[in-house]
């Protein structure tokens, strides 16, 4: 079995630079911990050149470099960068293992026919990581450990020939195997400097003198890696996010950062030929709180502006209630709808454009305002159902419309308009629209009745306890409009629920 290892040196810094690319050319450093106890984890090249090294406290680093840009570790950003690295590897091989903290193992079986040699394969992996905004190194060997060690060497990619793991590791210092501190002290006292020196010791004696940890390390030194390759399962969603340096109170700066995260998210969706059908938004609130919300889309989309509009509208309609100190977006992928063109039938709408348009409408109007209408089983005209719109395929030929149209339709008034009705022996004789805050902006249907036809009784749902009983009338007003009005037989109130038009 041949394995590749992709590692991102100084991963916490790389994850931070992925979220904030502007920091790349500056003297910046990432610290772990709080206040004066914070220790430097990684720093950019200008900062390292100025003398900063891992383990320094923040005051020490500031003493060396007063203009240092200090950042804390970004858990959400590191998680997203780790996922992006796995995505990059999955573009080359379907079997990858998450090694944690910017380390990914890739199974190379079956890939050799696609690349002239393993060096090219390694270069392709590095390029894939670069597309995700991560500078990675690559090592290729027969075991995970040898591949990892190879990936940590300069002049990447480094290829260890098949069966050459032990000779490759032999000249390297023992520290490359990262032994435990006690074990490292013992080995130093024994005068062992390289992996090869340690590998030469008799295996039968090692376990007795150094214990189980020593035996495992000895196997590793001989090029034997007992750890199996554990391919990961593709996650149900793609996540991007970051921790913010300062909690944000206003929406605009948040949207600026959200847009960058959504762009990265959409790029990953595009690489998987998917669109986002649901977006989960998690906000970390200052000082200690969480806010989770889920935005459903009517069709898979990869349009960043649409997703951003959805986030904006949702946050505007339901503010989080506290300053936001971090966020993460999880996109649930779905395959875009396939489209089929016809030669002689009506042109079909491009599925991508349709999905984007539906998402835009959804963002503009909100839930329950866009869809394909369906009639509801029942008699109340104001009732309806909306389902996600997915127009069926166009017929192979355009069908001519049926002749003899010209049916009278009713404009339904939702909600029904309250009326004051004067009734005489033969029915309503006069209407007056009752104006209230609810009916503001609705048409005025006041006037004398010229012709009235009714009553037509409607009763529905009496067995549910929420039924209605109405007496309907068709009335023509002297002013012109032809309306459909009804009297609620339970309350005796009158309403207009439609205008013939």
């Amino acid at each position, binding site marked *: 079995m041949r394995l590749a290892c992709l590692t991102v040196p100084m991963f916490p810094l790389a994850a931070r630079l992925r979220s904030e690319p502007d920091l790349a050319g500056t003297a910046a450093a990432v610290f772990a911990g709080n206040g004066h106890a914070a220790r430097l984890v990684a720093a950019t090249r200008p900062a390292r050149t100025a003398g900063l090294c891992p383990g320094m406290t923040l005051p020490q680093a500031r003493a060396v470099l007063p203009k240092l840009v200090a950042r804390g570790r970004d858990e959400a950003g590191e998680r997203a960068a780790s996922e992006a690295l796995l995505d990059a590897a999955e573009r080359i091989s379907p079997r990858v293992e998450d090694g944690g903290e910017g380390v990914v193992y890739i199974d190379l079986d079956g890939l050799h026919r696609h690349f002239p040699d393993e060096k090219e394969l390694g270069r392709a992996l590095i390029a894939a990581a670069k597309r995700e905004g991560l500078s990675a190194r690559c090592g290729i060997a027969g075991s995970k450990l040898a591949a990892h060690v190879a990936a940590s060497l300069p002049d990447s990619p480094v290829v260890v020939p098949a069966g050459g793991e032990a000779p490759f590791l032999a000249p390297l210092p023992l520290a490359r195997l990262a032994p435990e501190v006690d074990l490292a002290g013992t080995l130093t006292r024994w005068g062992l400097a390289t992996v090869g020196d340690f590998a030469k010791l008799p295996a039968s004696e090692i376990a007795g003198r150094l214990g189980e940890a020593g035996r495992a390390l000895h196997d590793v030194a001989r090029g034997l890696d007992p750890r199996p390759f554990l391919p990961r399962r593709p996650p149900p969603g793609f996540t991007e996010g970051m921790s913010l340096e300062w909690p944000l109170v206003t929406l605009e700066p948040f949207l600026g950062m959200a847009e960058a995260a959504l762009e990265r998210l959409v790029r990953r969706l595009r690489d998987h030929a998917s669109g986002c059908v649901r977006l989960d938004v998690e906000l970390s609130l200052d000082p200690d709180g969480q806010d989770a919300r889920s935005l459903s889309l009517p069709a898979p989309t990869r349009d960043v502006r649409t997703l951003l509009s959805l986030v904006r509208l949702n946050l505007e309609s339901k503010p989080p209630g506290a300053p936001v100190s971090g966020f993460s977006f999880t996109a649930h992928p779905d395959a875009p709808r396939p489209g089929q063109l016809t030669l002689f039938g009506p042109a079909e709408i491009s599925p991508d454009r349709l999905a984007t348009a*539906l998402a835009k409408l959804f963002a503009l109007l909100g839930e329950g305002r866009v869809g394909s209408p369906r009639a509801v089983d029942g008699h109340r005209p104001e009732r309806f159902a909306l389902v996600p719109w997915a*127009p069926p395929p166009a017929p192979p030929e355009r069908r001519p*419309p049926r002749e003899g149209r010209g049916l009278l339709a009713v*404009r*339904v008034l939702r909600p029904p308009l309250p009326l004051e009705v004067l009734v005489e022996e033969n029915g309503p004789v006069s209407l007056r629209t009752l104006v209230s805050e609810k009916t503001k902006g609705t048409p005025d249907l006041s006037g004398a009745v010229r012709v009235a036809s009714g009553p037509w009784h409607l009763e529905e749902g009496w067995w549910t306890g929420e039924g209605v009983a109405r007496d309907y009338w068709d009335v023509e007003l002297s002013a012109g409009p032809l309306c459909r009005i009804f009297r609620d037989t339970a309350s005796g109130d009158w309403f207009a629920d439609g205008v013939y038009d």
Partner: protein
Amino acid sequence: MSALPVSLPDLPEEISRQLSRAADLAGRGATRRDALPTAVPPLDRLLPGGLPRGALVEVTGGRSSGRFSLALSVLAAATEGGEAAALVDLGDHFDPQAAAASGADLPRLLWVRPRTLKEALLSAETVLSAGVPVVVLDLGLATSKISLAKRARHDFAFLRLSRTAGAHGAALLVLSPFHVAGPAAEAVLTASGTRAGWSRSLSGGRAALPLLLGLSSRLVLERLRGRRPGAAEPLPLRVPGALSSASHHASRLPDRSDVPARRAAQE
């Protein structure tokens, strides 16, 4: 577009009917726009062939002028022909049950329910940009004219809509109580002179219930590029389902023979 001559006898008729000679293509740009037949004879006569694709057509009229019925007929004709269509319904007046009864293929229909005029205009533009070939923008039953300042903005919005429809070859029908599209409209029609049709008869020596049969109005062509305005056609609209209001209501309402008026109508 003329059909190929019989020099290619192997082609099935339905295919050869839709092919043309190269010589015909040269003059194609000069011919009138492709049109969507609506199967509403007055409309198909006033706008030759039907609703022009790639253009905005405005239909104005008061309440009960028949413009909404006209729009539903257009949507029914489009969806029945296998095309996708969209209704941007500012007043939330659409009744899916009635539309299905009039022949609309609901799965091919997108119903957009904006709350404001601005949302309606944006929605219509979004739908047109997506490539939906038939779009109806209904501005509802608003009774007050839009203020002049707003109107100026809307003129620009309708110009955008018209251009978007042109770019995507979509037929855009705008329904409004008064003129709003301005110069953006390729054709303007007005529905007016509405009269409701009632049946009156004597039954058993007493006056029977008047039954709504339909309404008729007059569709007047106010503007169409390349044609003289003023042409008019009667627009008769009948109550769906049957020739009488009684059977119309029987199709929509539960049968209650204990209603005296209903019984009188059935006698």
